């Protein structure tokens, strides 16, 4: 390994075939480059999705009403279920010692909103006062919907960043107290909130649930239900309680709406835990997929190096023959070829690695979308990749080296 003469030989062989070595190295470099970039993206995806959820409260649980999947008690499947105010009252009453925050949520997409000559289309979230805490809406001006707004069915609205930007040119302090027109109804802006969750949350407009029910005439459909439970001592205990609560409420609602006990479509609940698990599985799948692509790309690079080394061995047949005639042991010939292959793959691999890491380092922080956030590669992965490279080099060199070791000196020395 640390033999000057052997290194000289390797550099000599490389400098004699600069273009070929460069092209070979390029295939390995790009293999590693792609692998690292893909892994960086996988990491960015993981962080991005994590970030999307981290602002939500971990003990939050949501109940959704859909269409039934099974017939039950003479009722047809595909029957639409709506949660009623009665359901909501029963649940909040039954579990009032456990529930910390509660709110029904009615959502309306594409709500046309005007202020003076400006307009835009946003999402209405009709909620109760607790929703501020359920959704982690951080108020930067004014106040959130309070109980009196709710009781009085007041036409008030709390605006997100997007409408503030479009309608008020970003001047959120000025917005409070102004009247905006949402779907042809006047609302008074009472507050402005910020949500770390992402761009989607920025387009929300919170109004009192009671106001929405009346205006849009939906007395028997409260939309979905959101709750958080009182804090638990430990994370695991909290999760168990949340899961228990979810199933109990679900069973209760099944009975109330005549839904088959095993129906998993009509009434569903979702909490951060189950959601997180799903996302985790998707991310894991992505990661495996990216590793697969990266490794295959690297593999084609290895084949390239192996191929080039075979040609080099072929070209140096005579030289290897001379060396053998002069007393070179087979293992020294194998070592020479192997070392050269490892050298080429390692150097070019390192170049690809540093290129990719450099790109992630400099460009990564600028990538702040909802899905991919600051893609980078953990140090341990980089180290693993280096080890992979050296192994790759050894594999690439093995076949040519064996070829070289089998060269018989007389065949090599025979004059043409």
């Amino acid at each position, binding site marked *: 390994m640390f033999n000057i003469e052997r290194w000289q030989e390797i550099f000599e062989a490389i400098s004699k075939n600069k273009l070929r070595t460069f092209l070979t190295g390029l295939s390995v470099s790009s293999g590693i480059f792609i692998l690292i970039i893909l892994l960086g993206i996988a990491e960015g995806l993981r962080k991005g999705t994590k970030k999307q959820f981290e602002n939500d409260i971990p003990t939050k649980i949501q109940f959704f009403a859909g269409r039934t999947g099974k017939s039950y008690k003479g009722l047809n499947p595909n029957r639409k279920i709506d949660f009623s105010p009665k359901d909501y009252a029963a649940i909040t009453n039954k579990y009032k010692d456990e529930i910390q925050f509660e709110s029904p949520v009615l959502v309306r997409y594409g709500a046309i909103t005007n202020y003076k000559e400006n307009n835009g289309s946003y999402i209405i979230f009709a909620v109760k006062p607790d929703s501020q805490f359920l959704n982690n809406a951080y108020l930067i001006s004014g106040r959130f919907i309070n109980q009196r707004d709710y009781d009085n069915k007041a036409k008030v609205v709390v605006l997100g960043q997007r409408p503030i930007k479009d309608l008020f040119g970003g001047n959120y302090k000025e917005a409070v107290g102004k009247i905006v027109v949402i779907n042809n109804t006047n609302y008074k802006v009472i507050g402005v909130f910020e949500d770390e969750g992402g761009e989607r949350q920025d387009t929300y407009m919170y109004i009192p649930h009671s106001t929405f029910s009346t205006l849009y005439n939906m007395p028997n459909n409260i939309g979905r239900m959101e709750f958080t439970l009182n804090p638990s001592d430990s994370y695991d205990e909290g999760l168990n309680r949340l899961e228990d609560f979810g199933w109990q409420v679900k069973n209760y609602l099944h009975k109330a709406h005549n839904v088959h006990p095993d129906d998993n479509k009509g009434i569903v609940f979702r909490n951060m835990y189950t959601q997180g698990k799903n996302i985790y599985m998707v991310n894991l799948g992505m990661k495996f997929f990216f590793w697969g692509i990266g490794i295959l790309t690297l593999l084609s690079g290895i084949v390239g190096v192996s191929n080039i080394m075979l040609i080099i061995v072929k070209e140096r047949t005579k030289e290897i023959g001379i060396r053998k005639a002069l*007393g070179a042991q087979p293992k020294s010939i194998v070592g020479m070829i192997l070392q050269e292959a490892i050298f080429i793959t390692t150097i070019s691999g390192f170049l690809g690695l540093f290129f990719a890491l450099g790109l992630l380092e400099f460009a990564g922080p600028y990538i702040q979308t909802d899905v991919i956030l600051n893609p980078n590669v953990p140090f341990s992965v980089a180290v693993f990749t280096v080890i992979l490279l050296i192994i790759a080099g050894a594999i690439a060199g093995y076949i040519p080296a064996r070829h070289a070791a089998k060269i018989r000196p007389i065949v090599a020395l025979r004059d043409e």
Partner: protein
Amino acid sequence: MIEITDLHKSYPVGNRKLHVLKGINFSAKEGELISIMGSSGSGKSTFLNVLGILDEGDEGSYTLDGTSIKNLSEKVAANYRNKFLGFIFQSFNLINYKTALDNVALPLYYQGVGRKERLEKSLFYLEKVGLADWADHLPSELSGGQKQRVAIARALASDPKVLLADEPTGALDTKTSYEVMDLIQQINEEGKTILIVTHEPDIAKMTKRIVHLKDGLIINDERIEPVKALANV
């Protein structure tokens, strides 16, 4: 030094076997200067390859300096080649990207001699062949005769028991050939055993013993008074 009895060797050619050496008996003592002559196809190169442990006979025995050369592993064969033998080839077979000095040092490198000692020794042998001033030159910068002298220095560097030369003057003009033969004679005078394969009678006459091969057998083996190469330069 060299003892060969009833040596047979055949090569497969297509489906048939080509019987190249058909029972050779040969012996050489220390300090001999022997030329092996024969037309092409007489088996002289095969004979030299067997002598040089580059190839092995099918039958018969071969003893080199008291060591039986039989069924050697590649590793041991390489070891023996390095220790016992020095090679000189018709086409010099220098490594073209190494300087003259580094070429000479190569057998020593495979003996595991340290770099400093290796280069000192190599320079000594380059001086011996009169090329000390050319130590840092690449083979491409040397003339044919100079290349062959570098090759001779390389063959001597590992201080082998026997020098084997395969048509050492085959690629050289007459004057240069005689200069190289003069060098070979000098080395022989110092006591080194040397075998030369050649098909040139004038070269053979500069050795002390001529062995004639024909169709895989020795047909003539005579001792002569060598012509001094220097006299013809």
